[in-house]
């Protein structure tokens, strides 16, 4: 396997594909390479070319979660979501760009069952063991999106700058279709460079886990208030980060037998998140 350090973001982006894979913190990629979930002949190291650090609301995609969680400039929801992610060691390596693009923890997908996301004809989790799985958008694939910061950025209405375009974070994600099983809309040779995060009047991130630390969200709830409008987004409840139109939208969820409990948790956390935001 080759290891290359490109000179510019454009050079990095254009070299991707055909066995060339982008490497940032490596916390998700390295295990996937080991498990044969990603095949690579060449690793394109992004550290020299993707911006890192925070400047007036713009976050370099190469900034680590550990750096974000302590940055007083950033909205509380994002800092809390970063702090609630993974472990200190992983947060010191993992970048926000990589975090947004991390793969699902669905055990069927990780164990390479021929599932819907892998191009197969059915979701094994729906009929199988699925306590960690989705309650929304789960008719084809019941995997749950693992990122806490993604939910926070969704609630905050963040925008992404890539090597090709600018787009709202909501448009980064898509549910899989018959023709296209990808969960993101990013092109193969496209890199996230920066995030533009609006400053809310108040925001918060709450997370329910199987243990007190180092665990993916069973349910994560981000809430951000901009003037009279409050935006809610959830982690761990759908194959992609999930924007919740309003609290009662939870009643339209489609839980599986083993994930119905997540609806109950989500109701409580949404109520608490809203109650915790100071009113104007």
């Amino acid at each position, binding site marked *: 396997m080759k290891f290359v350090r490109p000179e510019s973001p454009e050079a990095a982006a254009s070299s991707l594909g055909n066995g060339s894979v982008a490497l940032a913190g490596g916390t998700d990629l390295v295990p996937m390479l080991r498990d044969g979930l990603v095949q690579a002949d060449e690793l394109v190291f992004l550290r020299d070319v993707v911006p890192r650090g925070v400047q007036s609301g713009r976050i370099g995609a190469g900034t680590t979660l550990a750096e974000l969680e302590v940055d007083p400039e950033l909205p509380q929801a994002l800092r809390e979501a970063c702090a609630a992610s993974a*472990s200190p060691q992983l947060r010191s390596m993992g970048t926000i760009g990589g975090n947004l693009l991390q793969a699902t923890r669905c055990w*069927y997908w990780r*164990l390479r069952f021929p599932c819907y996301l892998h191009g197969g004809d059915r979701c094994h989790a729906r*009929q199988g*063991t699925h306590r960690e799985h989705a309650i929304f958008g789960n008719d084809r694939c019941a995997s749950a999106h693992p990122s806490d910061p993604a939910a926070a950025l969704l609630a905050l209405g963040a925008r992404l700058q890539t090597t090709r375009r600018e787009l709202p974070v909501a448009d980064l994600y898509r549910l899989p279709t018959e023709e296209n099983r990808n969960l993101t809309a990013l092109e193969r040779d496209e890199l996230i460079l920066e995030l533009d995060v609006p400053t809310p009047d108040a925001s918060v991130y709450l997370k329910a886990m*199987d243990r007190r*630390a180092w*665990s993916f969200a069973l349910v994560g709830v981000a809430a951000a208030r901009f003037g009279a409008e409050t935006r809610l987004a959830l982690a761990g409840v759908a194959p992609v980060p999930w924007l919740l139109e309003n609290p009662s939208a939870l009643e339209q969820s489609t839980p599986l037998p083993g994930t119905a409990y997540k609806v109950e948790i989500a109701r409580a956390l949404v109520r608490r998140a809203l109650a915790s935001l100071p009113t104007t």
Partner: protein
Amino acid sequence: MARLIRTEKEVEGHYTEQWIVVDEDALDQWPAGPLQTVGKPAPRVDGRERARGEATYTADIQLPGMLHAAVLRSPHARARVRSLSLSSVLAAPGVRAVLEPGDSHVLTDEPGYHGAAVAAVAADTFAQARAALAQAAVEWEVLEPLLDPDQAVEKGSLVSEPNVSERGATERGVSEAEAVVEAEYRTQTVLHNSLETHQAVCVWESGRLDVYISTQFLWGVRATVAEQLELPPDKVRVVCNFMGGGFGSKNGPGEYTFIAAELARRTGRPVRCALTRREENLATGNRNSTIQRLTAGARSDGTLTVLKGDYVNSVGFEGWSPSTGGPMELLYACENVRVAEHGAKLNTPPNAAFRAPGFVEGTFGLECLMDELAARLDLDPLELRMRNYADSDLVDGRPFSSKNLLECYRRAQPHWARREEVRARSQGPWKHGMGLASQVWYGGGGPPSYAWVRVGSDGRVQVVTAMQDIGTGSRTAMAQIAAEELGLSLDRIEVSLGDTSRGPFASISAGSSTIPSMGPAVRSAAADAARQIVEIAAQRYHLEERVLSLRNGHIVSADGGSWPIEEITELLGEGQILGKGARGPNPTGMRTLTFGVQLAEVAVDIETGEVLVDRIVAIHDVGRVINPLGASSQVEGGIIQGIGHTLSEDRLLDPGTGTVLTQTLDAYKLPTIADVPEIVAEFVDRPDEHLTNLGSKGLGEPPIIPTSAAIANAIRDATGANVRSLPITREEMLRALRAAREREGLERTAETVGEVRSA
């Protein structure tokens, strides 16, 4: 003197009566309480070595020319190998040898569980071995797996005959009861997940096999390997200096040893076979899941009239059916008890002993049932337990060699009295409560076990015995015992262990038996050496032996004389004083058990199902405590492992295929340090006057036994919800809360109906 006697031997709840040659145990016990070194906290003698990374674990063994093995495992829970071609594997870079079914008894072409070993390869590097295995051409005939334990029992798919035992008449017991509770409890499959994965390095030299292995029983590995490979046992040398966790799963050699031995034989090179973390989660044993259908009945004063337990142990494809009903038989003075245990044979990875196998699971069911009964009778749970205290063993009517469970309960009372204060902390959705559970287990150890003690002219002492320290602090405890007997400070004692070619036979480190088996042998060897020092001193100072003793590094006489011990030892020159000692017999006609009680304080968020354990108090009765610091560590470790078992750990299968889904530590959730509560460890610390020259029992297993029931009972106290299934995930907690609300709703409705009627 060696004697031939008939005695009982117990390991992990299995008693066998046998003829044994055993040495007499002539020493009187030391007086109770802390002594010079024994009974005082001692930091690990090997702590610095281990913290610096200098300690050599099996995983650190690097031998010249060593090859690395990788194992091809069945991806199917039940299958037949239709065809297998390893020619591409053999042709792959770095590969030196391959094994297929038939080359070793541990490889199979009819795997009965996901992870069963089918073939193996040795290559220059581990990466080459793994890569080569991917070239194996296997055609599988996939068969329908049997995964449902109740169905297995129904079909008679069992690993052994059901174990049924009854005392009294349970039907009468039920009819005499004024309150009866029946409930079904379930416990999950949990994994040992030792930090050091299962592994061995094998080397053949002149017809002799050296086995470096992460093991809990050097001599058991030696015997099993010698028998299987048809070698005289003294041609097999087994080495384990430091060990990174076993918890019962490393009692035998395991498939990896035989794979490494055969590949080493074929290649003439040392071979390491070390399992990966994934293999560790698949194929190294587990605490089997259980279904427990239980009944308890009592009179209104709390006197138990009946206990009944029908247990299904989901043993797996092979293995043994643990004594899940053991606590029900042993813990309470109930005349009518019936226990039936079924060991379901399934297409799932086999179980292995795991820190008090059976009793951890059985105590969860029994002690939750007792609290449900207490609630029905409106009795205090601690009071209910004290009213049914067993003064003798009701299974076979024998007296206990010692039992201080009442003292444990007495010491629990001040903690139990905090209950109102704990409950009063409840605020908003957070409900606080407190629960307790009792513990009973074996842990008396037994013969044979031997130790030697060597004293040199510098007055330093080496304890030599081929035991193992599995990370529990055995080196330190043995050094303390020798130091105490020889009147020396701890820093003058060296303990040499971990090598069958460097010392006499020593006990398995399982069944909480290391201290009670090895400790008395070490003391007896030290006493033999002390006696010889005194003999020489008596001649040197022209005094009678009976007036001399060893204390604080000196030989002291009854008339006040005192000489540094070196004055005698330096007379040895190149000579040595050699002491030998043996573990004496167990007390005849008595039952030796360990006891304890744990109290848990929890907080439950009734809206999200989150359970926080705030504090656990553990009070255990294990006879004399050798090292209070080591003992607290054991208690902390047991409770932390118990918290994982109670709240988060769950080995999950795909229900259709029997595939193990949780193979990595992100999916299989061990507790983190953030999940660890305040832990208070107390010991009764009274020597068992009938048990050996030490009066010490083992403590490895007792602390994990009552933890889950204590937590579940605290949850009931806090919320009124009956959690009956482990782990108590948020899903289970919310389910139990919903059931409690529905029950309360029904009761309210019934009350309203009653009020309307009476109006």
